[in-house]
């Protein structure tokens, strides 16, 4: 599903990624670990075509992201759902409208939008908040809405960049459980985090980045 071959990226004099090679299969749940500045966000941004590597090749869902044309990037992003640490919800739009956004940009009919948004909100447990504005939600609820938006159009891959960075341990567990559920339905999930608590709870394959380099792989068995 995701393949990186000798990927390197440099910003000015700083090396963000150095000769990174790995493969993630369909339906896998992978944690991308490492301290801040290790290159996790850069890697995720590359997977959605927001950054290009200086060297190497990246394939997502059989598409070479390194050579992708700018006009093809939106179609790649429709197959890859993204969850952010800061949620990135539109403050003036209701929960329903926020979650409907990915379907709206694809020109999905209003009947289908209603059905799919309701399903997504139900899946993450915030269906009762559909008419509220993001500001009226707790941080955990906001992250759930963000996840609902990422899965509403049935992506093949779900990328999450520090999704529990703003959450307490209890909420972190809830969100991780949600990712597990989404993964159980067949979606490949990649979670970038520096939080060891997440690693303990996920118990899956771990890729660790340190100063842009991929460390030997470890698998946490629960």
């Amino acid at each position, binding site marked *: 599903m995701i393949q990186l071959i000798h990927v390197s990226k440099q910003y000015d004099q700083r090396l963000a990624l150095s000769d990174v090679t790995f493969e993630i299969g369909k339906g896998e749940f992978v944690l991308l670990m490492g301290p801040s500045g290790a290159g996790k966000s850069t890697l995720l941004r590359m997977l*959605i075509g*927001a950054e290009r590597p200086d060297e190497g090749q990246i394939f997502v869902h059989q598409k070479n992201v390194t050579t992708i044309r*700018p*006009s093809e990037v*939106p*179609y*790649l*992003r*429709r197959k890859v759902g*993204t969850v952010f640490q800061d949620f*990135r919800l*539109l403050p003036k739009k209701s929960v329903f409208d926020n979650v409907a*956004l*990915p379907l709206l*940009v*694809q020109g999905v009919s209003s009947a289908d939008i209603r059905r799919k948004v309701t399903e997504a909100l139900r899946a993450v447990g915030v269906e009762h908040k559909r008419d509220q504005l993001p500001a009226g939600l707790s941080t955990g609820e906001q992250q759930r809405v963000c996840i609902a*938006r990422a899965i509403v159009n049935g992506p093949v891959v779900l990328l999450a960049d520090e999704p529990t960075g703003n959450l307490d341990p209890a909420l972190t567990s809830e969100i991780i459980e949600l990712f597990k559920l989404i993964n159980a339905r067949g979606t490949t999930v990649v979670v970038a985090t520096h939080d060891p608590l997440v690693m303990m709870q996920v118990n899956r394959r771990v890729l660790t980045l340190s100063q842009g380099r991929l460390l030997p792989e470890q698998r946490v068995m629960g």
Partner: protein
Amino acid sequence: MRTNRTTTMVAILTTAFTLACVGVFLLLYVNLRTAAGWLQDDVKIMVYLDDRLAPDSVVEVEQRLRGDRAVASLLFFSKEQALGEFKAQFPSESHLLEGLGQNPLPASFVVALSPSFRSPDAIKRWAERVRQDSGVSKVDYNQDWIDALATVIRSIELVAIGIGVILSAAAVTIIANTIRLTLFARRDEIAILRLIGATTSFIRVPYLLEGAVLGALGSALSLAMLKFMYELFRQQMRTMGRFAGLDNLIAFFPPSVCLALVAVGMGLGVAGSFVSMRRFGEAKA
């Protein structure tokens, strides 16, 4: 547009004032062109006959002129009629001619040309040709006046084009800045849209439409301002004795031109939006 209501209003007003300035020149130009057309249509060419010409030869010249496809109408003006006209127009100078004993004024034909021969060049060519004909002593028409008017119109045309280009660029800049403010206010929203797979056209279309609406409203408002000024000007002319009657000769843009100007405003608005989006990079993600 709702995000920056004040900025939008200011942009529409500034665009309207800018386009109204262009409109003033355009209106002046259109009216002068119309007036020039009337004058051109009204050109009467005097074909003066040789004083020694026998009556038979006068008929010959007349037949020749009548047979000319450039000639639309013809009026004979005898020596006596010319004298009568002179006395009527210059009563205080009529004693000058009486002193000469005989009437020095030549007989003439007053010729009006067909519409396709009324351009300054065609008139000139026709006059040159007829001047060579036997029995014709002189061909005269008010060409200087027409040429002078044509020069004035050309100058106004150039000024209108120059001012039009500069002020249109100003309108594009004004709209571009307004759209940029909107883009700036919505940069987060645009970035999110990009991340969830919105295409460039999905993101751009609303802003292009906003630019089009701003341009069209600005243009429509400028036409309303122009129409108001035009009516005010006509009213002033009507009350000023010397120009009474002239007010009916000046005209406002016909509806088709008004629509075209609104379309031009719309086009400038779209251009402004486009420039702004190119510079802003649409909050690339």
